[in-house]
């Protein structure tokens, strides 16, 4: 793959209408897959398993994403509710519980589906939609790998190490993009980012991929902190600064 600009993943075809599952274990409603919470799960009872949504009319998508148990997940589209039309758009393979992403050329279908043929793995988040591409590269200093351990290191009175207890690991950063959208000046910030902020990013988790081309597995489920800013730059341009925090899973 070649390098690709950062993307934010939040738009979801499964929110266009009520999704339907092939089978559902008691207590594991399929509605859980669209709430962006990695702790509410849908679980099928039989394989192969599918989650399908009828968007009512053809709707575009260019990515599929799951937060799920280990398994293979296919992203499929259809014009006739998976009769004669059943098109595989991409496959996600997870070797452990976590996030997985596949991108494909934008295409519209009325019916979209996530399908698993590998047992009955549980899915916490499933999203098929149009990625929000940030038209700039991360500023110098962006740190995709750094993390902060929350916990305690214990040492004895005599100085001997006794043990470390880790509560969790945090990844947080201020996403900074200088001269974001140099082609269109303020237009991208005003017409693309701000609606996304209002629709989702302000109060719901989303997935950030800092370099989906060469590092497609470096995905983080994050939440915006309480603000973002777009400081003005001369020439009718602006920067974007978006502080986020997430958990290393």
């Amino acid at each position: 793959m070649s390098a690709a600009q950062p993307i934010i993943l939040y738009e979801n075809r499964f929110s266009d209408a009520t999704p339907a599952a092939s089978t559902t274990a008691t207590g594991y409603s399929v509605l859980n897959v669209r709430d962006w919470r990695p702790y509410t799960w849908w679980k099928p009872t039989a394989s192969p398993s599918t989650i399908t949504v009828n968007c009512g009319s053809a709707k575009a998508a260019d990515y599929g994403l799951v937060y799920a148990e280990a398994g293979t997940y296919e992203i499929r589209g259809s014009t006739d509710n998976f009769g004669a039309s059943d098109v595989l758009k991409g496959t996600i393979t997870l070797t452990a519980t976590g996030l997985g992403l596949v991108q494909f050329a934008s295409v519209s279908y009325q019916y979209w589906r996530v399908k698993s043929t590998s047992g009955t793995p549980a899915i916490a988040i499933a999203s098929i939609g149009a990625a929000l591409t940030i038209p700039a590269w991360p500023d110098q200093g962006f740190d995709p790998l750094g993390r902060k351990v929350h916990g305690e290191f214990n040492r004895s009175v005599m100085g001997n190490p006794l043990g470390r207890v880790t509560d969790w690991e945090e990844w947080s950063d201020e996403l900074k993009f200088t001269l974001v959208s140099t082609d269109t000046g303020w237009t991208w910030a005003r017409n693309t980012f701000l609606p996304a902020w209002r629709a989702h990013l302000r109060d719901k988790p989303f997935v950030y991929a800092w370099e989906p081309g060469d590092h497609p597995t470096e995905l983080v489920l994050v939440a915006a902190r309480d603000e973002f800013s777009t400081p003005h730059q001369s020439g009718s341009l602006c920067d974007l600064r978006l502080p986020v925090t997430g958990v290393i899973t």
Partner: protein
Amino acid sequence: MAASDFGRALIELVEIDLDKCTNTYGVAPCTASGAAGSECYNTYKTCQAKATYVKGTKTYRFCGRGSPLPAGELVRPYIEDVSGSPTEIDTKQGLAKRASITVKLTDEPDSDVDTDPYISTRAAASGTFWSRLLARNHNYAGRFARVKRQLVLPDSNGRAIWTTSDVGFTSELYIIDAIKGPARGEMTITLKDPLKLADRVQSPFATDGKLASAVTSSTTTLPLNAGQGAQYDEYGYPCWVLVGKEIIKIDSRSTDTLNVNASGHAQFGSVAAAHNSGDNVQLCRVWSSAVFTNALKDLLNEAGISNSYIDTAQMTSEDTNWLGSKYYITACLIKPTDISTYIKELLEQSNSLLWFDVLTQKVQFKVNAPAVPGATVSTLDESANLIEGSVVVESLDAERLTRAAISYAKTSPVDNDSDQGNYLRTDIYVDADAEGANEYNDVRATLIHSRWFGAANSNAMKAWAARTVNYRRNAQKKIKFSLDPKDSASAGDLKDLSVRALTDYTGANDVTRCRITKVIDTGRRREAEAISTTFRNRYAFIAPNGYPNYPSATDAQREYAFICDASGLMSNGDGGYLII
């Protein structure tokens, strides 16, 4: 076991059990018949057919805000903090301070998928997770909650993999006392240990039966007003009742008439008397030559703590080893009083300790005495166990005693508890050496009254006075310290502590045996408090026949008592043992 490894990830889980109807709305036996969208939420508060409600349990699970999540399981990462005061053993008064734990949790918008069983028929719910849950579940008080912890080893990718069914969890059992909030997006749940029930329930139950007609001082029946008889069945028959200032023994009940025992008047030192129509008849609580710990169990059961939450085997063992027939109880309680008051009296008057161990999920009972010979007591030291900056030693000088007295054999339960003249016996133990000019040169005295013990318990009362002074003649040490999770410590455990703050005459560490009275387990460390258990001299069971003389005995054999010489010392110069 991951706790003994160096790098570990903490998983902290809080579970609360709330009621949930096991029926399905509108399906037999449920007789509700509302339209789609107007169903209940399977809780009693929202039930539309309460006569057919079937109480079940739904468990809600929460973990830390950033905690690793279990795959495929609903555990809400809402916990912001778990804190509070744990069970604290009281070596002076016996009844432990009840644990009170505060759990702070986030509130947030929630899809209601898990909490509304009929979500598919309704429009999207407004409100937040907790506001809706509490609106549908008013009756959460007294339901069980558990605080669970485990330390897991991260896998090769640094992931902490776990499930709620892992066997590695420790599980602390509490009851829900209160749920407050939401306030600024935060909920507070207060949890108490089940011994709290003993603070809320009284014994004997208040009864309100009235005499339907006047009776003489030798009446063979007590006629009650219509419909008032059944409340006297509480403790079975025979039972005892208080009418005026007379305690009367009842053999049986015939509808609303209580049948008096042939010699049932003027019981427990009270005086037979005639009684007027309308006089109240109060049920009494009586034990006759009861084993000490059986009376204790009766009180706990009455408070709502069943035997499945009591370590009955340990109780029996302690009773056999240290109490026995000298502590048999014959007593009559006439006034409804908090059960915890009675338990506290019994424990103080037997030099015993009682607490709820949230980990074993049972009430524990121990006589404040040395470990039995052969028991394993581990040592904690400053090299391998005690966390830097955590060791604090305090001398409990204010609790020192030089003499102790107990008044018992009360004239009658109807007489005033605090009037010294209502007790027929007093035993006292004085440590003249401790009061002498070369020692403390002061008098520190305590006097308690017992409504539980009579003349038949005189040996036990003498022993109580002696043991109390011998335990408290020298100031005990309170030691605070913290341990890494690799080292176990629970309230009630005996530990030998080797710390620089406790030395002998030469300055060498004086290994001190302590009983742990309190442990705050944060998951990251265990913050403990302990009290030294030293008596004036060491005391123990007398060594069995066939043991060698003291100088030749092993350390294990010296856990039994040997006879010293006239100077009070063993032949090698060691201090002698104490017979109390």
